[in-house]
């Protein structure tokens, strides 16, 4: 690979999303982990999100990650009011004072992210969008979301999706060139999801695996209790109905099986009713909602992780479960089939019978000790790491900011017309942007053009009202290591140790 040839430039990027800490969740931790790893690779990353209760203003997190909690009105489930332009003045100020070059929005339901991408394009910045979820095309809500996504993504520089299914979905929803969409999966912090019998310290593993050998779990006998863990919010989309239907059947056919269910949600009542009706309270343990830190402690109590979800873009939790050394039984929906290799999983159709069947198969596989679950952790660690995600994201950044030639980034095709390739490099001139937006739809295209023109006028107005020269440039967080000697190898080392 020719990657090493480039003199790597530090990228100043900002992650923008409605969803961030202190709210727990997958997108939130994705943003945090990706940002810290990018900082470890020598870039400068800030995060812009809206103010949470008791958390307004500018904050620093570990590693010098700066978070702007912009005070904005929150309307529904931590999503801000979609006012198209009101975010622009403060966003411009932040972007100028932090010398941002790339704006990276997350999650299609975040209006903050869409606005930021629009404004960033008006200001002449490169933009990246990461899609974390799947949307259908049928109901009114997703039609609206898709239109909004089309608006934002018709002028975005690059899109990152967490799975190939997610990529297909996003390409269809926003009518994108598939080559402008990269697939970069989520990852897990494997250190936080260690199986119970693994060595407690990572250093010991480096020194020698002898201690690990001693801790190898006892093989499961034919009459040992097998515990099935389910950790999910109890919503319809998470397949709780399937779970409710299949638990009694699994327990009826396998007497030595216990369930641990963690999570809360509207379907919790149905689940409890089922338990009461079938008198299964002694076999099924309901833990209620648990914090993300406790997930590992719950997971290591079981042998099988059951994931009956009906839709899932990536399914980080099954990677976490596999990392904890659990055999995974999951439905074959969304991006789940891409996530884990076959020896770690048993797939089922989203049908009650098939889930029961798959779980029984998994139980018998475990009983016959065919599955080497003790190896899962190290294998998952190789497959998914945030350092790798950051490296791949960095390549996207370099590609859109021109550090990698477009031929290499998008691939060079001899028969290609110049027209098709040049459209991928999105230039900033207003007329070209308007052309892109105009194609969004008969009415929507004109509306979007209007929005873009207003945004541009607002930008000019802001440039006059708050001149660039008056905005203080913020200092970067002091780096402990001297930048001059940091070669690529050292950065990698840095990334893997921290």
């Amino acid at each position, binding site marked *: 690979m020719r990657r090493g040839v480039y003199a790597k430039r530090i990228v100043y990027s900002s992650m923008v999303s409605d969803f961030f800490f202190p709210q727990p969740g997958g997108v939130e931790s994705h943003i945090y982990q990706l940002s810290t790893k990018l900082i470890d690779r020598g870039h400068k990353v800030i995060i812009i999100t809206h103010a949470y209760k008791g958390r307004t*203003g*500018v904050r620093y997190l570990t590693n010098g990650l700066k978070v*702007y909690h912009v*005070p904005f009105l929150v309307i529904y489930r931590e999503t801000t009011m979609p006012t198209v332009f009101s975010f622009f003045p*403060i966003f411009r*100020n932040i972007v100028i*004072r932090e010398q941002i070059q790339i704006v990276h929005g997350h999650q299609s339901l975040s209006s903050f992210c869409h606005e930021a991408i629009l404004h960033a394009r008006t200001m002449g910045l490169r933009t990246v969008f990461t899609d974390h979820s799947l949307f259908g095309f049928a109901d009114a809500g997703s039609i609206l979301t898709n239109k909004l996504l089309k608006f934002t993504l018709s002028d975005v520089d690059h899109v990152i999706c967490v799975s190939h299914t997610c990529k297909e979905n996003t390409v269809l929803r926003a009518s994108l060139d598939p080559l402008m969409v990269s697939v970069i999966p989520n990852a897990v912090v494997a250190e936080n999801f260690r199986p119970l019998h693994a060595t407690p310290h990572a250093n010991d593993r480096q020194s020698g695996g002898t201690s690990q050998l001693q801790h190898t779990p006892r093989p499961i006998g034919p009459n040992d209790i097998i515990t099935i863990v389910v950790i999910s919010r109890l919503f319809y989309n998470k397949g709780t109905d399937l779970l409710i239907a299949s638990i009694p059947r699994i327990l009826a056919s396998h007497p030595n099986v216990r369930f641990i269910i963690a999570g809360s949600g509207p379907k919790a009542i149905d689940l409890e009713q089922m338990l009461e009706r079938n008198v299964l309270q002694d076999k099924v343990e309901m833990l209620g909602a648990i914090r993300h830190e406790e997930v590992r402690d719950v997971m290591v109590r079981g042998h099988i992780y059951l994931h009956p979800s009906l839709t899932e873009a990536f399914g980080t939790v099954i990677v976490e479960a596999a990392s904890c050394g659990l055999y995974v039984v999951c439905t074959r929906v969304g991006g789940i089939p891409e996530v884990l290799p076959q020896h770690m999983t048993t797939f089922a159709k989203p049908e009650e019978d098939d889930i029961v069947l798959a779980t029984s198969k998994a139980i018998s596989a475990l009983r016959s000790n065919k599955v080497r679950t003790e190896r899962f952790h190290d294998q998952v660690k190789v497959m998914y790491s945030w350092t790798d995600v950051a490296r791949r994201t960095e390549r996207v950044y370099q590609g859109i900011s021109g550090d990698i030639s477009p031929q290499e980034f998008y691939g060079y095709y001899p028969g290609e017309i110049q027209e098709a390739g040049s459209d991928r490099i999105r230039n900033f001139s207003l007329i070209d942007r308007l052309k892109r937006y105009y194609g969004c739809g008969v009415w929507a295209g004109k509306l979007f053009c209007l929005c873009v023109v207003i945004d541009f006028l607002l930008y000019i107005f802001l440039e006059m009202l708050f001149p660039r020269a008056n*905005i*203080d440039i*913020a200092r970067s967080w002091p780096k402990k290591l001297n930048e001059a000697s940091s070669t690529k190898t050292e950065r990698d080392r840095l990334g893997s140790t921290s």
Partner: protein
Amino acid sequence: MPVHLISRRPSPTTASFTVSNASRHTSTTAKLFFYFQFLLRLIVFSGIIFLDTAHFRHIFSPRNESFIPWAAIWSSPLGSFICRIADTTNSIVTALASALVIYGVFLKGYTEESLLVIRGLGIQTSTSSPTYLSKAATRFIPTTEIQDIVIHEAFKGFEVRFYLAVVVVGEPEVVVVFPKLLPNRATLEEVWRGSRHCLYDSKP
């Protein structure tokens, strides 16, 4: 108006930082402008007082002969002109307008904020009042209550601004130094270094 910083060190244990957006009157024209402004304020003030007196001249008894010859004044060309204006306008309007103008006369037109650091004693922040009539608002924080002096950022209006703040023991909110002017980062860093140096005698 550009904000400028004047730092003084009257003694090794004392430091004073004044931030102001007033003009410095260094050149002759600036000085002349200042005096002219003063004169103008004087004239406007006396004029408005004169107008008010003219408005209420009927309430004053014209018959008792005080030492000011009121009748002569009102019959003079200027006096009669003023009387005519005063009679045409409503008394409430006159009262409001004169109150506004008097406020404007005494308006300072600039803000001056200062930070006085005395080692072993504490620090005092002061923010000048908007008019010449009231005193500056000051706050003294003894050394024992000062936890730290920091520079941080915050949202203000449509901007993110740097500010210098004193973290006070036992108070939930920090005391912002220079809260009105919010000078730029370079100025703040200079003040921060100077005050820490003075307060803790540490090498900044």
